């Protein structure tokens, strides 16, 4: 591959992170700036310029820039998207608001319904109807469609249109006719067809996805176009890519039609980075653990690839409550989010028990120790009290932490009401947050039928390395890995991701009743679209790999499982292979097979990928400390030893091959790695901390 200069940019809520990889000189540079929420491109342009300058390069040398953003998810959470009109099949416009008709909390009589992005008076219907096999029961009424579209656009002044017709995943003909009318008569108004954004069975989820896409589309299109133009104006000739929620990257041109696919782009970057480190350290099975200020994210990585799934829930009424948000049919890295971060607050509940999170102090006022007015003790406060954090070296010393106030807050708010010592309260806070994360991880593994003992932990995020050791102990893991530069992991993840795209077509059939020519047509359709798109993104045709899967289940069963499907044209000779593949996956997930119940397929998927860029890790751009790594000692609390003097290492002075044993803490600017007694550490060639638990 060519030796190129590539930059990853992750726009987060608080910080925008930058990573520059210079493949020719084999160097990596990193940077961080405050996000500029009103116009994120301000921080991006400034940060990129600074990084390019630090690397001694010129804008014209930059081959490409990969961008991830929280803009899509924030638009939905903050409800700042476009005024959308929805046009549906006659009789079902309320699908969007009825949802799944469940209560996400069984015991709350007053629960708030998940938001409806398109209010009822902006939901219109037209006569048309398809049967599940795609045949036409009622023809499309083009004139009626034109009239309702005109009313929505000209009278109601909607800024985007979503169209969702019944069974359009199987036969998009009516939606295409609707599209022709929209293009011809109202060309300037952005629109989303359900059969394009999510050609999958289940009308609520598909409608919801189409509406959410329309909702974020005008804003994202404006933003991406402007950013591209600004970069051009600043003299960057390279391509602007964006990170997709599923862990692939794509061009701005491909992204502008379906911006909803960017909904999890930041977290996907983190998972891709963890996947990269798992390959780098030869670790087959990895739990990726990213703990920040408000949440912890857990993702499983097997064989160098993060687990993925094809649905996601956005804009939850209660952030950590399944079912309280909008379901989206998009490919995402399959991760769980737990209300456990450095800012998670400790409280005493009505029964006199200690609770930690999910409420968070956020970054303002933040934990008590920030001294910014926070009064309630947070996890970071307990971590400071227990000696894990250095009050004089938080964010590299930029933010001195106030120990005396912390001690008082824990004493008054937690210890005294519970009848505990301050130490017991602080230990309790640290333990409970670890327990919460361990429980969620166990549940995630259980739902996937995986055995935790096969996994190692990779930790990043500001609080990840502080809590990784405790989490690994609870999960009985034997090894944990803490990469250098934990603060910019997502941005690095963008650079180790490949151009990739996922397609799906729903075609429901029992296996023995499949119409093979129809199925082959679906796959060849997806394949040619994928090839065009990836070549456009810079891939060589011969380098593109395609993997096929199908969502299958036993007839009557509610869960579909993802089953590999062989390549090439399929006919009835594939039948035994498909059946066996189904049984294999079923056996792995559920530890049994049921032979005599028919199998049916719901959806067929194609995942196309260009080769992963070859990034070598050399932190030449990092200020590596000279001299000795052992900075000194300080008292640190461990369950086994109580408070005991413990070695403190400077992360930047640790050299490859160095070894030491716990208890120890390793300090870097954005995080601190805690190592328990009896553990052994070695520093690998890429400056990763590799810790073997006793």
């Amino acid at each position: 591959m060519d030796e190129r200069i590539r930059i990853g940019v992750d726009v987060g809520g608080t910080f925008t992170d930058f990573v520059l990889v210079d493949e020719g000189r084999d160097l990596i540079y990193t940077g961080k700036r405050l996000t500029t929420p009103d116009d994120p491109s301000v921080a991006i342009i400034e940060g990129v310029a600074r990084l390019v300058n630090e690397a001694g390069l010129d804008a014209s040398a930059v081959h490409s820039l990969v961008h991830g953003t929280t803009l899509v998810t924030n638009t939905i959470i903050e409800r700042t998207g476009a005024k959308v009109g929805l046009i549906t099949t006659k009789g079902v416009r309320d699908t969007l608001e009825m949802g799944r008709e469940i209560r996400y909390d069984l015991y709350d009589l007053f629960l708030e319904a998940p938001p409806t992005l398109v209010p009822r008076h902006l939901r219109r219907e037209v006569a048309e109807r398809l049967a599940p096999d795609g045949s036409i029961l009622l023809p499309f009424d083009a004139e009626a469609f034109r009239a309702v579209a005109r009313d929505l656009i000209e009278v109601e002044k909607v800024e985007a249109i979503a169209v969702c017709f019944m069974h359009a995943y199987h036969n998009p003909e009516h939606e295409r006719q609707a599209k022709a009318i929209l293009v011809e008569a109202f060309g300037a108004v952005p629109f989303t067809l359900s059969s394009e954004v999510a050609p999958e069975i289940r009308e609520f989820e598909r409608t919801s996805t189409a509406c959410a896409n329309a909702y974020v589309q005008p804003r994202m299109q404006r933003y991406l176009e402007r950013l591209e133009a600004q970069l051009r104006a600043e003299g960057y000739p390279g391509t602007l890519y964006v990170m997709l929620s599923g862990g692939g990257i794509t061009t701005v041109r491909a992204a502008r039609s379906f911006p909803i696919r960017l909904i999890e782009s930041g977290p996907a970057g983190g998972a891709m980075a963890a996947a990269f480190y798992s390959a780098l350290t030869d670790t087959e099975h990895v739990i990726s653990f990213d703990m920040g200020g408000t949440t912890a994210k857990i993702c499983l990585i097997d064989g160098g690839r993060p687990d993925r799934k094809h649905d996601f829930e956005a804009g939850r009424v209660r952030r950590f409550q399944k079912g309280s948000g909008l379901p989206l049919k998009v490919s995402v890295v399959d991760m769980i989010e737990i209300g456990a971060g450095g800012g998670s607050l400790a409280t005493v509940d009505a029964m006199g028990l200690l609770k930690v999170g999910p409420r968070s102090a956020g970054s303002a006022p933040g934990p008590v120790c920030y001294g910014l007015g926070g009064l309630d003790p947070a996890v970071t406060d307990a971590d400071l009290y227990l000696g894990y954090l250095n009050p004089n070296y938080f964010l590299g010393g930029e933010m001195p932490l106030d120990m005396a106030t912390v001690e008082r807050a824990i004493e008054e708010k937690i210890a005294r009401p519970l009848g505990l010592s301050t130490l017991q309260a602080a230990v309790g806070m640290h333990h409970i947050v670890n327990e919460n994360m361990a429980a969620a991880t166990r549940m995630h593994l259980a739902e996937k039928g995986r055995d935790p003992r096969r996994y190692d932990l990779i930790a990043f995020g500001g609080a990840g390395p502080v809590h990784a050791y405790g989490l690994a102990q609870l999960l009985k893991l034997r090894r944990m890995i803490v990469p250098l530069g934990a603060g910019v992991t997502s941005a690095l993840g963008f650079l180790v991701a490949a151009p990739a795209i996922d397609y799906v077509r729903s075609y429901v059939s029992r296996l023995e009743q499949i119409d093979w020519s129809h199925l082959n047509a679906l796959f060849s359709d997806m394949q040619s679209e994928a090839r065009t798109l990836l070549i456009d993104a810079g891939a060589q045709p011969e380098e593109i790999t395609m993997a096929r899967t199908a969502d299958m289940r036993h007839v009557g069963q509610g869960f579909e499982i993802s089953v590999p499907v062989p390549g090439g044209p399929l006919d009835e000779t594939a039948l035994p292979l498909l059946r066996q593949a189904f049984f294999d996956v079923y056996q792995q997930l559920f530890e049994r097979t049921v032979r005599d119940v028919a199998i049916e397929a719901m959806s067929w998927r194609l995942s196309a990928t260009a080769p992963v860029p070859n990034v070598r890790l050399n932190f030449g751009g990092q200020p590596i400390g000279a001299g000795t790594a052992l900075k000194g000692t300080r008292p640190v609390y461990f369950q086994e030893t109580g408070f005991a003097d413990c070695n403190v290492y400077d992360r930047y002075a640790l050299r490859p091959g160095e070894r030491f044993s716990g208890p120890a803490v390793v300090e870097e600017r954005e995080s601190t790695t805690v190592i328990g007694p009896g553990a052994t550490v070695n520093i690998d060639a890429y400056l990763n901390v590799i810790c073997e638990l006793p």
Partner: protein
Amino acid sequence: MSNARVETDVFDPVTLEIFWSRLISIADESAAALLRTSFSTIVRESNDFGTVLMDANGDSLSENTGGIPSFSGILPRTLKHFLAKYPPQTWKPGDCVITNDPWLATGHLPDITMAMPIFYQGALVGFSGSVAHSPDIGGSLWSADCRELFEEGLRIPPMKYLKEGEPNPDLHDMILSNVRLPDQVLGDLNAQVTANQVCGRRLVEFLDDAELDDLSGLSRTLQQRAEAAMRDAIERVPDGIYHATLDADGFDADETHITCTITVKGSDLEIDYTGTSPQINRGLNTVMNYTYAYSAYPIKCALDPNTPRNEGTYRPITVSAPPGSLLNPRYPAPCNARQLTGHLLAGVIYRALAEAIPGLVIADSGSAPSMRAVFSGLDRRGNRFSQILFASGGMGASAHDDGLPTTAFPTNAGAGSIEAFESVSPLIVWKKEFRIDSGGAGRYRGGLGQECEIEIRSTEPLQLSLLSDRWRHPALGVLGGHAGATSAIDFSDGTVPHQKSRTTIEPGMRLRLRYAGGGGYGDPKARDLNLVRDDIKNGYISAEAARRDYDMS
């Protein structure tokens, strides 16, 4: 956690929080295993299952978070019956006892209850239990019109489904020879066994980690805490005797009448149903276990929604109903559609308590009882199918907000996808939309019901079983709120089927189902007129109703 090795019942608040959360996670992991491997539509679409971890006495320690109240609260009672037949010392590792007896378990034959012992260091320390709605149990399918229990399907007394891990082949054959979908039924029975095994394994790991020898001290402590929380909550309700009645369609001339008297005294709450209709020879009878569960659940929601549930939760609440009544029938009364009666209890309980705790209750829900249409026969390709249309009426309004539209309460059955429904049946759903003006007027409006219109596109006639109520008796409002709209079912040719019947339907017919709306809360004249205007704009209410109910000029 090393400080947790305790000989007494004293746990510090940190340890107790950690242990309690772990025990709930164990029930949740068990539930995940069941849900993942289950075949039954009813399990996955309407969450019709529950898992419970119980201590060595058979008392509940933790229940799965999303557990259906009728299941999790009843399991310990069923286990007590198991223990009466098989004393604790006779249980061996790998044993699994099964029953679906309505009186011992959850009130109708399709629900299968299973329990397995959990051993630690050779001693019996607890039981794992699960209940799930089976894909089939023989008999009359899901219907309300049987005259005896024996028509409703196979009854399994408490028996060993597994003996020391080995299947009991006679029982196996017996069950599988009496059901329509033996493979699916077997699949779901095995899913329950898996769930129980997961629960057992996780408990053993927990005891290892916690360095506990058994659960006795912990169990006592957790049950005391939950009981204390419920007692605190009941004490906040003013002492008194509260009263309400409720009428429902029942079966033909046998209308359902429920009389509810709630006595609150200190931290005890007693619900009595003396005055309720006698049992009838149709499947609406609600056995005492089910009556208890659907009485305790609305109390828990209103008074103490946040405390995790275990045996202690239920101790302060007692429920009684006269033997031989609709809410405490004698064997062998038919009880297949007992939800048509049991779901009504939340509404009458809340109306009784509305004056005493106006901020904590909701008005009666149109979605109680759930209305179901069960279709079965051959699809257009000749595949045998059986599909239930899951859809709900509106929920009752509260002092805080309008009732949720089309949402089940007190059950939590979701709605499936129409496209998925149509893909596996010869049916087309032409309409599934909100019913305008169906929510009861009030300061806060009842949730809207919905209307569904379904065309039969099979080549052969299909079987239809209807389970519905509220045709004549709407969901009532509270504190001045109006009643919601009643429900109705008819055919395109103008004929009206029996509301609780099994009939044959011809290809080409269209069935129209109108689901009831929820009751309103408070005087409609007190409603914010901006909300009324929004309701008109969105077509939730008509301009005419706005004038009539809200004085909107």
